[in-house]
């Protein structure tokens, strides 16, 4: 069973500290939800873990199965088993989803090894059926001209194909109508299991009705300020983030 340990992580963008000492351990099989107001550093956290060059980790550690990943390039981290479902996925004109995924899988093979094309397509189509994605979808260029919902489904399909150890899912629910949300949630639920740890970043409680988390954390101003089980999410929904802010203010006083 794999695990991702985030220890007292500090992240800056252009000398401005955004994540200010965040610790969290995600074990295989667990789903952790992080909720928090906009601008609090949720996307920054996920991109820093994934190795985006704009985000500087000023102190702290991130370990995957006990090994630090912070010295690794983004692609090495990915191949080690970190997957980021982007809040705003990039478009790659002219590169079909099928070819893109094939290249991504090929990159995981040893030199000289070739991906087996027929086996690949079999697996791809099986995953697409599971996610109720039309076959024609994979001949379209990655995210090029996709609706918000299509982009998110494309992320989930990639996640299903790449079988990461840890998935960081950044607002995967945004831009989805209720049917699409259900399909995406079903997909994630079928992937749940001891081999996969999930960090589910979301602004709203809605997603957590479909992907029920084991833990819920509230992030505010670059830190986790409160942790609990799924009931915390309901509490947040009812009381709003102001409630957390007030609590924090009282604690400080």
């Amino acid at each position: 069973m794999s695990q991702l340990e985030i220890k007292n992580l500090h992240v800056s963008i252009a000398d401005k500290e955004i994540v200010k000492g965040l610790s969290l351990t995600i074990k295989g099989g667990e789903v952790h939800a992080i909720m928090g107001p906009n601008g609090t550093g949720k996307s920054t956290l996920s991109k820093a873990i994934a190795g985006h060059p704009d985000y500087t980790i000023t102190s702290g550690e991130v370990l995957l199965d006990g090994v630090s990943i912070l010295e690794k390039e983004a692609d090495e981290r990915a191949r080690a088993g970190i997957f980021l479902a982007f809040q705003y996925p990039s478009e790659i004109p002219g590169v079909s989803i099928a070819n893109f995924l094939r290249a991504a899988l090929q990159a995981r093979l040893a030199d000289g090894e070739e991906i087996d094309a027929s086996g690949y397509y079999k697996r791809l189509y099986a995953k697409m059926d599971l996610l109720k994605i039309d076959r024609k979808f994979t001949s379209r260029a990655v995210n090029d001209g996709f609706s918000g919902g299509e982009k998110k489904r494309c992320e989930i399909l990639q996640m299903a194909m790449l079988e990461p150890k840890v998935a960081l899912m950044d607002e995967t629910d945004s831009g989805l109508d209720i049917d699409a949300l259900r399909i995406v949630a079903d997909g994630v639920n079928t992937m749940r299991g001891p081999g996969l740890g999930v960090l589910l970043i979301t602004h709203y409680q809605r997603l957590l009705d479909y992907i029920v988390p084991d833990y819920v954390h509230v992030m505010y101003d670059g830190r986790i300020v409160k942790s609990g089980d799924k009931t915390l999410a309901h509490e947040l929904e009812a009381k709003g983030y102001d409630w957390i802010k007030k609590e924090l203010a009282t604690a400080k006083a």
Partner: protein
Amino acid sequence: MKPPTETDILSDSAETGVMENPAVGIDQSAGNFSYKMEYAFDAGTGLSEDTIRYISSVKKEAPWILEFRLKALKKFFSMPMPTHWATKDLENIDFQKIRYYLSQGQKPKRTWDEVPDDIKKTFERLGIPEQERKFLAGVEAQFDSEAAYSNIKEIVSKQGVIFVNSTEGLREHPELFKKFFGKVIPTGDNKFSALNSAVFSGGSFIYVPPGVKVAQPLQAYFRINAENFGQFERTLIIADEGSEVVYMEGCTAPKFSTSTLHSAVVELVALKGAKIQYITVQNWANNVFNLVTKRGIAHEDAEIKWIDCNIGSRLTMKYPGVVLKGERARGEVISIALANDGQHQDTGAKMVHAANNTTSNIVAKSISVGQGRSTYRGVVHIPKHLKGCKNNTECDALLINTNSRTDTYPAISVRGDKNSTQHEASVSKVSEDMIFYMQQRGLTEGQAMSLAVNGFINDLARQFPMEYSVELKRLIDLEMEGSVG
């Protein structure tokens, strides 16, 4: 610019390159090697009338050809460098330091067994004999100034197709070739066509008889082996009425520390209803000045299509053109240029409409990486008295990192209102976020850039013959891998 590399020893990339993928394409990625050669014929260094006389005499040419050459030399000396519109880098060519003619003999061999060992080794490493067996109707393999090997499959020659080098063509079939030789591209078209007309050697002369459709492509491969050398091949393809032919050319040279000059002239003639497709995938080393003039004349209902992929070289200046001379003639230029650090791809297209209801299509895609620079120059000319003419021009540029530069100079002169043109241009960038996105899926930075570039040209590459699109992809992969710091 990349530093020069050892050329006498086999580099690793060269070795694995050939072995890796012998089944597809002509392996031009493996071009960076050369063998020490003793040349039986050598015109020495520098350019004068004596150089011309030497070349003409070893070729045992008819007097009219020597005359043609000497006139061209005068023209070349009298014409200024086109630096008033083109790059000043042209001034760095020292014409007196170049060797204009190097060969082992003027008669190409008809079988690979007869080709001298060193030369044969070169072409075997590039995979040519194997390709010939697999999917080509004929091959000409030029080594420095002359074709070392030239052969056409019997089934094709029986149809009356002529496929020889320029020396043989002018000697054996003067009545056929003289009529069009130097007519599509006059000597004085530009300074480099004048230079070629003076010192030309090698290149292909092709004639396809009426109605003959050559089923497999004819291929020429141009190899520069010697340092400080200039290669000046001359190609003339005549497709007679209703015939069809596909010609493909590939080029490589090893990376020398001094610059090398490649200056070809290619003339195409498509007679009534004929179709010519001319495909180039070049991968010159990045010290080669590649200054090539290519033009075709399309008669009534004829079609000429240039597919031009320019990778490598220090400076490429090339603007394939079609003169649409007969009614309903069609011309097309599809070009892809990749300018990496220290390279300048100055490419484009020229369409001259000279009859009613003629159509032309230009799709040019350029990729500039690092300090690389791409320039598109297009000319579309439709005079006032014509009607029913159409042109479509699309120029797309892709920039990878902020230092690279792209310029577009489209000149579309359409007179009168009975013709239509459409012009689109775009510039896009491979953003850091896009690269990060791909890296997050496990691709290295080089693989990510390469995929972005392949995506950018995908719609064009799909139109190429399979072997060439695979080869193009491999060359792009290599370029992009090499461009990551």
